[in-house]
């Protein structure tokens, strides 16, 4: 178990997943004392069909819904301030974020703004003290998810907010919202989930509570991502990938050492490459170094990856390297399936040379940053 004298874990998010999950939303909101939600989304990112599916789920509820569908990647404090005043003026009492990535980040910061009421959204920063529960926030992810939707983090306006109160109260995953996604999108979602869950599972500060989330996430990705990528219309497999993404976010909230996460985030912030794509490129290198140095508990990956039989057959001393080999094969199969749709290195991902300086800067100057730069060198291609 965790070597620290005292460890803590918390996952404030309730999970609802499966058939007709969206239709439970009116009851779920009532349970949070809310009946007048504001939906925040991006029509461009999630599509009209997903928005309509969500709205239809409220059919027969008699509720009135607010809808803002114009979140962009450049959402800024002006927008948050504007939405905040509308929220307060129209007396909305909950936020539903439909989508992933920046949509949810913006929703988390908006929730902070409306909950603290008096604060000017321009003055919010990661240093803003958050002392208690915020207004209800529900996240409804689509197939394009970073995995951080369920986490306590919000990446907004070049800053990282972090508080367990920022995490949503509820995540609702419905198979209808993975419709129309392509293999490339699902792969990026699944690989980000894999990267974050692997990182949680092997880090020195792990504990059995967090392990439950990372274990289930890794198992789901291993068992379902290949099928979902090959056949995105396989609703069950796609939903399992979405579940894994949600679990990985819960685990990521409590993981301190997060090298893959950092690499993925830097490339996403600067070049908008989905973090899962970069995490997959870096994963074999980072874990390979760990194996050489005996730094992390790679053996802990084998059981979720291969299941009971193969795990029991593998001698303890071989588990770490077997896990790494299994991961390597898993990734190369995915690369095989997706071909050009899943870049194997930065060259294939078309990262322009002039951006590299910013990216390397973003990794920081400390020991970890210096190490991560060596990883980036190895994925240049």
């Amino acid at each position, binding site marked *: *178990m965790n070597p*620290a*004298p*005292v*460890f*803590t*874990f*918390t*996952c*404030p*998010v*309730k*999970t*609802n*997943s*499966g*058939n*007709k*999950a969206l239709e439970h939303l009116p009851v779920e909101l*009532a*349970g*949070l*004392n809310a009946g007048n939600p504001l939906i925040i989304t991006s029509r461009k990112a999630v599509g009209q069909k997903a928005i309509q599916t969500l709205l239809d789920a409220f059919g027969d509820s008699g509720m009135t819904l607010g809808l803002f569908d114009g979140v962009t990647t450049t959402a800024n404090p002006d927008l948050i301030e504007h939405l905040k005043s509308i929220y307060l003026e129209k007396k909305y009492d909950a936020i539903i974020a439909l989508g992933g990535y920046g949509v949810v980040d913006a929703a988390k910061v908006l929730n902070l703004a409306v909950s603290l009421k008096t604060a000017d959204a321009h003055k919010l920063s990661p240093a803003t003290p958050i*002392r*208690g*529960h915020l207004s209800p926030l529900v996240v409804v992810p689509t197939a394009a998810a970073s995995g951080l939707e369920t986490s306590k983090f919000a990446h907004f306006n070049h800053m990282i907010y972090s508080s*367990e109160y920022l995490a949503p109260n509820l995540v609702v995953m419905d198979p209808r919202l993975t419709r129309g996604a392509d293999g490339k999108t699902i792969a990026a979602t699944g690989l980000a989930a894999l990267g974050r869950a692997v990182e949680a599972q092997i880090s020195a500060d792990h*504990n*059995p*509570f967090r*392990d*439950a*989330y990372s*274990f*289930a996430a890794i*198992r*789901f990705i291993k*068992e*379902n991502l290949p099928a979902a990528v090959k056949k995105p219309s396989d609703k*069950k497999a796609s*939903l*399992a990938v979405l*579940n894994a993404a949600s*679990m990985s976010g819960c685990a990521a909230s409590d993981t301190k050492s997060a090298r893959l996460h950092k690499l993925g985030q830097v490339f996403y912030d600067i070049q908008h490459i989905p973090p899962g794509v970069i995490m997959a490129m870096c994963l074999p290198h980072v874990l390979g170094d760990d194996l050489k140095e005996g730094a992390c508990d790679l053996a802990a990956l084998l059981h979720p990856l291969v299941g*009971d039989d193969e*795990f*029991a*057959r593998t001698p303890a001393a071989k588990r770490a390297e077997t896990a790494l080999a299994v991961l390597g094969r898993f990734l190369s199969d995915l690369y095989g399936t997706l071909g050009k749709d899943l870049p194997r290195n930065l060259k294939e991902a078309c990262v322009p040379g002039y951006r590299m300086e910013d990216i390397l800067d973003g990794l920081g100057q400390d020991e970890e940053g210096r190490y991560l730069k060596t990883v980036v060198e190895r994925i240049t291609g």
Partner: protein
Amino acid sequence: MLLPDYYEFCCRVKIVAGHDALEKIPDLLIERGAKKPLIITDKGVAGAGLIDIVTRALRDRVFADLIADNVPPDSDLRVVNQLAGLYHDNACDAIIAVGGGSVMDTAKGVNIVVSENATDLMAFSGVGALKRPLKPLIAVPTTAGTGSEVTQVAVIKDHEKHLKMAFGSYFLLPDISVLDSRMTMTMPPFITAMTGMDAMSHAVEAYYCLQKNPLSDAHALAAVNMIYQYLPIVAKNPADQDARLSMAVGACLAGIAFSNSMVGLVHNLGHATGSVCGVPHGMCMAIMLPYGLEYNMHKREDAMAGLLLPMAGEAVYRDTPPAQRAAKVVSLIRQLNADLNTITGGRHARFFQEVRDRDGKPMVPREVLPEIARAALSDGASIYNPEDTDYDDNLMVLEAAWEGKPLDRNKVKKG
């Protein structure tokens, strides 16, 4: 790992675990803007000196002198109202519950009254009557078993009106559960064994009952692993601090698993035996657990087989042919009960015939089994059991559990 067509999972409780976990409480209270907690406990816990450990950990940082140790073994509406009055009169701003299931239930009840300014607790009974967060509640369990530090339900009895009120809401989940090894160190082997098997039954039933889901599964597997490994150790060496902490963590994981996936026949018949004969809950769970597995095996053999690896480890798993793994799990649980029976000098009963009260009188005479079988029809756990149960089924299982004979699985009516 299977993804059900639909599932829900929630455990919002912040877990703080360690040998010095109690010392974190002041910071956690201050973060939540609280500094004057009401400490709720019972005489047994206070008498064992556990409250002194808690107050020592709090003193100097927050107010720690307001202690109510009058929680009865059976929750009582009058006590809830009296403690709520104490909370108001002293302008408290948080609750710390130190104890087992009854203390947790009482604290949850007090929290409803003080947070909602309720004059009638009844108005908040049932599911979903609470709509917003309550006052900060910190749960400090003193047994590694009930899991009530992570459950969203409370049962409060109105002894005057002979009413049993049940409350269910995610807002009843404690904000924080503090698992500290010092809180269970003095628990005698007999109680340790029984409460540990209670936790084991939570984990095992969570893994085969109808509402299981990937997250409850992951918690259940981890719980089974820790409890099976550490329960015999703490029963033998009560002072083993690391093993005590592992049991507290295992029981908490089991609590999270079962409060999301629910429980079945073991709890169904166990509750009924408890209410008809007064047998302690943990002992009923210990005795019934192998039978719950046997009764449901035709519907859940794969899931049960999946418990073998976390319980017995790789070598036993490899040496057991796949078709015999579920049956092996049953025999290992029977063996665990037998080992605990030996360790406790016979006080840990293996079957109902062996259960005796303080005077050595049998607590479950054979002729009450029909009454237990009937009472079980009124217990909600039957809904989540994989196989249907009626009066005859209940009686058949109880007869076997009374004699201590394995269930004849050919006689189970299969749906």
